[in-house]
């Protein structure tokens, strides 16, 4: 099937079997490998994207449901030259190790900060509980977002 969607502000078209996921469309058809595949079961959040403004696991969205949708991936959050504040905060706090979880955390945290610019520790833990990080133990990610919230308050 042909899927027409907007990704990071650009109109894109993909020709895919209707049974594949949005994650496969992004990674394999649209050459946007920033979103990661670590479980394909909605358990880890490595594939987090904004889908019509909502935070979703791209591995759980069928390509067939994407026609006409607006998708923002990690590639649309910031660039190497112009980092999003969440990206800068994560770097400053040492919240990146292997980096495989990082794109998903960046998307989920950017969404959190957008909806609640001054989250407390409980809000941060709750908002990011769907994203698994195997390396950091989450402490540095928490400190990154707490420092961002402090700067905003």
């Amino acid at each position, binding site marked *: 099937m042909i899927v027409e969607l907007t990704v990071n502000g650009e109109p894109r078209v993909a020709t895919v079997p209707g049974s594949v996921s949005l994650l496969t469309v992004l990674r394999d058809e649209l050459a946007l*490998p920033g979103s990661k595949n670590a479980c394909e079961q909605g358990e880890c959040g490595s594939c987090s994207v904004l889908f019509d403004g909502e935070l979703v696991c791209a591995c759980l969205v069928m390509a067939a449901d994407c026609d006409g949708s607006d998708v923002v991936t990690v590639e649309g959050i910031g660039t*190497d030259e112009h*980092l999003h504040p969440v990206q800068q905060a994560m770097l400053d706090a040492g919240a990146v190790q292997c*980096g495989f979880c990082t794109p998903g955390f*960046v998307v989920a945290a950017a969404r959190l900060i957008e909806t609640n610019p001054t989250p407390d520790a409980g809000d941060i833990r709750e908002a990011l*509980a769907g994203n698994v990080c*195997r*390396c950091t133990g989450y*402490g*540095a990610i928490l400190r990154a977002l707490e420092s961002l919230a402090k700067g905003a308050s």
Partner: protein
Amino acid sequence: MTGTTVKVPVRGGVGESTMRPDGIPKVTGNFAFASDLYADGMLWGATRRSPVAHGRIRRVDIGAALAMPGVVAVLTQADTAGRRTFGLEEADQPVLAAGAVRFWGEPIAVVAAHDPDTARRAAAAIGVDIEELPPLSDPEVAVEQGSVVRHIRIRRGEPDASGAVVVEGYYEVGQQDQAPLGTEAGLAIPDGEGGVDLWAVSQWLHADHEQIHLSLGVAPDQVRCHPVGVGGAFGSREDMSMHIHLCMLALRTGRPVKMVYDRAESFTGHVHRHPARMWYRHEANEDGALVKVEAKIILDGGAYASTTSAVIANAAYFAVGPYRVDNVSVDGYGARTNNPPAGAMRGFGAVQACFGHESQMDRLAARLEMDPLELRRRNALGSGDPNATTGQIIEGSLPTVRVIDELAAIPVPDPADPADVRNRPGGTGLTTDPGDIRRGIGYALSIKNLAFSEAFDDSCEASVILTPMGAEVRTAACEVGQGLAMVCQQIARTALGLNHVAVVFTDTSEIGSAGSTSASRQTQMTGGAVLKACEELRDRILTEHGGDDLTDDGVVRGGEVVATLAELCASGPIEHRVVFRHPETFSTDENGQGAPHADFAVAAHRAVVDVDPELGLVRVVRVDTAQDVGTALNPMSIRGQIEGGIMQGLGLAVMEELVLDEGRMLNANFTDYLLPTFADAPDVECRLVEEPGLWGPFGAKGVGEPPTISSTPAVVAAIRDATGLELIRAPVRPEHIVLP
């Protein structure tokens, strides 16, 4: 050129919490992991695996798979041109099984096809006729039958020594998976001349290279293993997975071939932590002084050797923990069964033994009615003491007493505010009366060897190149996420006195082995090689130019620049290449006595838990720690290792376990294999205890493994404290609390 210069200290040198050089591409999604690689015209690979844990292969029929449109090649063991087996310590594992299958999920055939879906369907279409045999799935039965990879026997002191107080215990540790977030992935590209280039997740490129060229039956220089983005490792990439398969497919098809395991295949495609059964007997005097420790430890190594011989050695050599005891008897067995192969995972044998010896120390403290930390302090092993098991005199720093005292100085938190339901065990789902929640506190200590042991020639090559821009460090070490590039950069900046340092990870053809990214060793080994290379290069240049300092401006003599970097490099970049080795280690004798280890680190953990006794739910409130780090080269990065390591220890304490049924994995996915999430993350305070080590760069010690070792027994001890239960097994499950 001449000119005066003012000495400005380098920025981002040793001791600072600098930024990772790979940080920006990782936060923007531009960092290329192995699973992100792409080559024009590439095919996709898939693996056909054994559906049984043990059996005789009667027939493998590849006809139907080969006939499928889009399938380019189907390979079996008959297509292995060279050595048909591989393995890190013993080449006993078939590249592709033929004749027999020895574990559930063992690879039998591989496919290359135009797209991943076709490859997967073709793999499933391969006819595999297997006569199923009863699997040997109980490691105790395996040991009885003599199915053992290695038996370590330790006898030290007087077997008849006895103490006034005796405690005995039996303990078990379940099988943990490394669960690195990136699954196994790789891309092999044929070079058109019979050779192949491979980009696949790894912890040790040169060990892969050696095994690959032997199995392909090609010359060593026809295989090049390249560094690639690795999404975490924790031991799971020390053994190869798809590496030889990819190269075979690329050479057969003459096209690039990519493979990515999905999560279920990742669980079967890499080795896991050894599950353990342990029997302990401690004897002590009334004052708490340990008199004798006896232990029997059985680790289940699964179907193939992998690193079992080194893992069981660690479990046996650290069976007592960081304590002084004169009389020790340990028998450690690495069993061979038909369970999935076990191998390296962070902590490497010391994790299992630590759960045993620390559970015993708590029992002994309870029997003596002594404070658990005080008992440990009284028996603490220190520099100059003989290690209780091997008798090896600890030559470097070993601040066991200091880690205990630093830990004890961290304030114990107040009870949780019961008003915030998110802080209760089970979170908002808790149904228990908050007043029934019980708090517990537990302690544990650990000791771990650093770098390779037992007479292994642990060498590490690195090179530094001076250019007009600054310096470039080159190494084939694997950065798997731990921050090696950053620490090498810091060491080079400080050692050279230059600000501009780039770290380049190279392939196996360009430089010699850096050894494995394991055993907490790369900061000490590759870091040590980088330091040596930089110091020697600096000396060489200063000697040649009669300088007394090197700066970004060039060689300085008496405050004046006598040669700029550009002038130094007038006839090309200046390279200096070194091989670094740590102090020699030795094999032990028939009683396990000798000096098998190069260096040691200790750590202490204190866990605070809240337990809901009705539902058996546990919330780990805090895990505090004091860790022996030698010298802290990058405090922020060390904290990251500590917090991440504690989370893996917490996972093993309360949730993570691969469940097997007669060798079959029942929970090979992230829905059923539980990983700690943000909601499970305890607060952590860490104190870095700095007593410079013997030979690491600037006195540094490896820091990666200790956080994972004693955090598990500390959490379980805290649950025991909260519930009064014995809890002899990690992980502790709700039923162990509700229905003990």
